[in-house]
């Protein structure tokens, strides 16, 4: 496993440096450099000769670093406090990957959520509202941890999933981390005499998130600004359904889904205005063929069809609604295709989805069978 504690050192140092630096150009370099360093380390460490068996945390470290790097490269010019908060959030997310006591994980999740709220500066009222809303989620999750320790799995599991789910609604960047924590919760409670209670809660929660996101998109038509976040939530719901049903195949598909989701979001961030690259990113994010999330979505739906065919009807309703809104949001005419950095993650997603190299496929399979 990647020593995620060590991976968190560059962003922590960068956060301290960013607060002290005033020159915008240098701050941008430090911001991007720290993310790039974490990404390179996260990519290289699992392939070292003495590396331990791979786990889902290895993949998530890469996804977090890739997402942060894209944001640092393509994001707007930001104040030093906001940039430092971004680095702090990356460090907290990397530290939360370390398998530890649920209370420690919750503490890092709280730090990541608070740093995410601080990125809304200078709108202090927005930060305050986000902090209050995040606090509700953390309070629920805290109660859930204690209830689980007390042996009350239904109350504890429901409170935890509700709290984590609310955190993801507030900050979709936390989605992969929360899915990993849910997997750990499922593994920790699965051995007890509660059947697959947490798994069933995860399936219900995932389906609820997918249908709610599709309903909001269909009824409110929130526009292109909120479309990526709502689509990410819906795709997270699909992954949660897959993880909840369990089994190495669905877990493999869920991990690939998370990787493709990060690549599609990165492509959207890197894309130009109203160009073909943005259209391709949006279609990929909604799961429409052939690019983006389509291959992993097909894998998850296929797995669900085998394990719980009755789930296909509500899932199809949610996915069709999602695709419909995305297609309806597209303009009648788009600009010409041009060379854009957004095509790199899109091509990578295409490769991962349809022609995954054998060593990487083996790595994903190893992560799918390893304890989360």
């Amino acid at each position, binding site marked *: 496993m990647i020593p995620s504690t060590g991976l968190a050192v560059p962003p922590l140092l960068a956060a301290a440096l960013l607060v002290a630096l005033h020159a915008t150009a240098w701050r941008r370099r430090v911001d991007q450099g720290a993310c790039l360093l974490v990404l390179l380390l996260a990519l290289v460490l699992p392939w070292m000769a003495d590396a331990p068996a791979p786990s889902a945390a290895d993949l998530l470290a890469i996804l977090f670093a890739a997402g942060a790097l894209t944001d640092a490269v393509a994001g707007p010019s*930001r104040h030093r*406090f906001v940039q430092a908060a971004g680095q702090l959030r990356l460090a907290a997310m990397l530290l939360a990957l370390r398998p530890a006591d649920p*209370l420690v994980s919750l503490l890092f999740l709280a730090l990541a959520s608070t740093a995410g709220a601080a990125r809304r*500066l200078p709108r202090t*009222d927005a930060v305050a509202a986000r902090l209050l809303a*995040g606090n509700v989620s953390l*309070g*629920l999750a805290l109660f859930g941890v*204690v209830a689980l320790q007390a042996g009350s799995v239904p109350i504890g599991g429901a409170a935890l999933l509700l709290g984590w789910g609310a955190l993801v609604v507030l900050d979709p960047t936390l989605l992969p981390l929360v899915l990993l924590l849910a997997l750990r919760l499922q593994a920790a409670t699965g051995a007890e005499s509660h059947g697959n209670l947490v798994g069933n809660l995860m399936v219900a929660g995932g389906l609820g998130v997918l249908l709610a996101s599709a309903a909001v998109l269909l009824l409110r038509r929130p526009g292109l600004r909120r479309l990526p976040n709502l689509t990410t939530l819906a795709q997270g719901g699909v992954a949660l359904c897959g993880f909840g049903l369990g089994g190495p195949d669905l877990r493999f598909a869920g991990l690939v889904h998370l990787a493709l989701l990060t690549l599609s979001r990165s492509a959207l961030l890197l894309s130009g205005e109203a160009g073909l690259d943005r259209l391709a990113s949006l279609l990929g994010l909604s799961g429409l063929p052939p690019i983006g999330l389509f291959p992993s979505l097909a894998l998850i739906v296929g797995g669900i069809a085998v394990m719980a065919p009755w789930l296909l009807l509500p899932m199809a309703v949610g996915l069709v609604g999602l695709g419909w809104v995305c297609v309806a949001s597209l303009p009648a005419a788009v600009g010409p295709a041009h060379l854009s950095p957004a095509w790199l993650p899109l091509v990578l997603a295409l490769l991962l989805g349809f022609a995954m190299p054998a060593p990487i496929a083996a790595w994903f399979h190893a992560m799918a069978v390893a304890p989360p």
Partner: protein
Amino acid sequence: MNALSQGMGGLALILSFGLLCARRTGLALLLFGLQGLAVSVAVAAQHALSAAALNAVSVLAVPWLARQWAVVSAAGDRTWSMPVTLAAAAVLSLVAAAAGTLALPLAILLLGLLLVGARPSPILQALGLCSLQQAAVLAASGLAGTAPLLPIAVAVPVLPALALAALLLHAAGGWPTGERPKGERPEGEWPQGDRLS
């Protein structure tokens, strides 16, 4: 849970109802302090003295700091009328009664959530959030025998600190450094002309 612990848990629940009914901010702060002290006594009755002391200091510090930093706002109107709020509180308490040994903490948690939803005032919402932690501390006190460190860890005032920070930011209402870099856009906002349709 022994008798003293259960009694103090019950008192904390009654004070949660009081918080829902409070019309003045000062009264709400007082009721919250009393609720926290009741929870602390319940925790001390389970022989978790460190957690009880930490929790007592935390619940007394929240109203004091809120007053010191002048972040106490008016209690404001209710989103729901009083009968509707109390009816909802009664239903939630009945639902929580099915939770067995966790009934009292769960009821306090649900009433804290109700306070956040039913009262639009930031200070009352912050007190509702602090109530969520009181519920977790009360639930953890029952495990003091088997996991002695758990009540202390749960009593660490992370949630109250975040709630106070939110109150401070709400009261500040401006860019903290007094400057905003040129060309900066708020997080999540797309550039003008970015609409595809």
